[in-house]
């Protein structure tokens, strides 16, 4: 029986998981190989239901673990077709070995990560510790702040990953529960428009081209390994951003919705800014607006839209005139400054004029980041900006019980 297209309303009320599921359905993936884990389980369930109802023409491998899920994706992708999966937390950690294998083999797989804390203690709620694991894995990484972004960035991710100049896998991350289970209005594309935006999959070195046998996943030692890794890094550093820009432009032309490698909110004349990811970006942007009106703080927000490749140059442009920057990490660095602190510090280190930078650890295991918390951060920033130096410890924990935790 032929598969059917689905008729969508112009605006659907979807949570992030449903948005990802529909995007995956609309791009007509050839093989999904997946394993359920909270909070990404509904993606796998929704996809199963689409399949059961005749809306999917591709294959669906419901495998026995996340490691197998990505292993199946790798085999399928090398065979020559469109491939995707989804996971969270422990599943992502279990999958980790294969993430490096997928990117090293230059296979354009798309992975939806629905963020969740890493055990122990076991926790099902959203934080960024799982996705931070993937930082050096060679995947392109897009971060969504709400269900609309999840939907849109999935199309972008397939388009960029599958480009023959790129051929690298891509992650689309969203916050567990805060995005994945919170329904909002999502502007949809009809099935044909969505599919045509990404286009037909164009195979390369496909194992199923039986007249041109290909060897995937070779051994290289000190003689060639470095060149392979260097080339992969080079392509991430030089080839991916132009393709992302192209895709963002094309998507804006199609939908009117604009995405940027670095997202900025109230940044035109900002003196102080928060750098963060996920749902916190929208919270912080709202607080910035309020503080501008109520307290005269020239506050802005920088949202990391593309975590990998790391937008070093783009961020330099955005932060170079700031007096103070707060980096908010939703992951316990366990004995170090947070990742965003370190990476933003790297961005400013060679600028003539450097903002004062500090670090906040927040929201672990799904703890809410409230507007009150964010306002306190902005007030710290104002004090740092006025003093021209740190007036706070370098690293503080916010929203955690007990006496205030601060370090360095």
């Amino acid at each position, binding site marked *: 029986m032929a598969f059917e297209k689905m008729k969508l309303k112009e605006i659907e009320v979807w949570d992030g998981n449903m948005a990802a599921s529909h995007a995956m359905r609309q791009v007509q993936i*050839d*093989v999904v190989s997946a394993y359920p884990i909270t909070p990404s389980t509904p993606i796998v369930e929704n996809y199963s239901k689409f399949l059961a109802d005749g809306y999917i023409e591709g*294959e669906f491998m419901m495998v026995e673990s996340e490691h*197998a899920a990505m292993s*199946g994706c790798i085999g399928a992708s090398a065979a020559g077709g469109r491939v995707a999966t989804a996971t969270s937390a422990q599943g992502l950690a279990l999958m980790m070995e294969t993430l490096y294998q997928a990117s090293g083999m230059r296979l354009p797989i798309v992975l939806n990560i629905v963020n969740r804390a890493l055990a122990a203690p076991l926790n099902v709620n959203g934080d960024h510790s799982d996705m931070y694991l993937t930082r050096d894995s060679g995947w392109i990484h897009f971060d969504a702040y709400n269900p609309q972004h999840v939907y849109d960035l999935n199309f972008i991710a397939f388009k960029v990953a599958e480009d023959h100049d790129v051929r690298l896998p891509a992650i689309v991350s969203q916050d567990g529960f805060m995005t994945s289970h919170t329904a909002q209005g999502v502007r949809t594309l009809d099935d044909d428009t969505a599919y045509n935006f990404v286009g037909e999959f164009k195979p390369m070195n496909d194992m199923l081209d039986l007249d041109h046998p290909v060897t995937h996943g*070779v051994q290289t030692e000190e003689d060639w390994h470095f060149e392979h890794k260097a080339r992969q890094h080079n392509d991430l550093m030089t080839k991916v951003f132009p393709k992302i820009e192209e895709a963002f432009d094309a998507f804006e032309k199609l939908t009117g919705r604009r995405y940027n490698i670095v997202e900025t909110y109230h940044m035109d004349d900002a003196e102080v800014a928060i750098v963060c990811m996920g749902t916190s970006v929208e919270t912080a942007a709202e607080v910035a607006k309020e503080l501008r009106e109520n307290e005269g703080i020239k506050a802005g927000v920088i949202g990391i839209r593309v975590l990998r490749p790391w937008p070093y140059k783009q961020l330099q442009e955005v932060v170079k005139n700031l007096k103070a920057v707060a980096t908010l990490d939703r992951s316990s660095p366990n004995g170090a400054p947070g990742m965003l602190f370190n990476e933003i510090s790297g961005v400013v280190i060679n600028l003539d004029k450097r903002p004062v930078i500090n670090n906040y650890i927040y929201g672990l295991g799904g703890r809410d980041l409230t507007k009150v918390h964010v306002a306190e951060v902005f007030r710290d920033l104002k004090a740092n900006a006025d003093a021209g130096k740190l007036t706070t410890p370098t690293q503080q924990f916010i929203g955690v019980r007990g006496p205030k935790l601060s370090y360095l």
Partner: protein
Amino acid sequence: MGEIKKIKNLKEFSTSADRFEGANLLCPGCAHSIIVREVLNATNDDLVLSASTGCLEVCTAVYPYTSWDASWIHIGFENGSTAVAGAEAMYKALKRKGRLKQPDREPKFVSFAGDGASYDIGFQWISGCMERGHNIMHVVLDNEVYANTGGQRSSSTPIGGSTTTSPAGRVSYGEKQNKKDMVAIMAAHGIPYSAQVAPNKWKDMVKKIQYGLEVEGPVFINAMSPCTTEWKFDPKDTMMISDLATDSLVFPLYEIIDGHKLNITYRPKTVIPVEEYLAAQGRFKHLFKDEYKHLIKEWQERVDKQWEMLQRREEAGV
């Protein structure tokens, strides 16, 4: 369904189309290469292959060279079975969608893996592939040891075998656990075909591989692969050791159809004492010390019991 290849004699067999080059880094006398060649030579069908990390993989795909003249993939140590399962899923999807480049050809999907990659670390992946019913064949190159990493024990290592992680020593006779019965475990998945093969019995091997490639659904093949380096015998003796293994019934050849119907496919004319098989390999040398001689007797008893069990299952048709 492709036409089943007809092979009359060994000469015809060994000169048939070569999709696995002799130019590889496997040890002289390594049975892995003999088995792979036998599997590939059994069919003219197009092949999509995988290898899990291990001797076969590191010796046949060292960039910028490859010994493979068929589509081939390696991902890691544990997941070669799932790699071809993914490729097989892609084949089905592209076939349904009319996007195959050679729509009239039906490739076969075969995964090669060591005993470490199959009995141990890849066990779950293989079980998953078997349970889900992918149309793939998983072939274990069973040398009863982690050869690639220098000869550590696996759950396929037999009792008394000396390995680098179960060495014979002043107070130890080596491996303490009995070899895991993978063929039985795989058959228990209810798969259409599982079988044990050996490189010296090539006609038996070809028959089983051809049956396995034609049958619809997952197939499990356990191939005994004598390892000159870790079993410690002269590289020229690979076939002699294989003969000792099959003719002493240490390594009986049989098949299990549809998860239950067992057929013994080779009955040695003269059954050789297990002692001769053990004596031919350095890994069992210590068993011939006085204090361990009882273990050789126990070996023989175990082999006799296993053979009796196989015969009874065959008679009963279960």
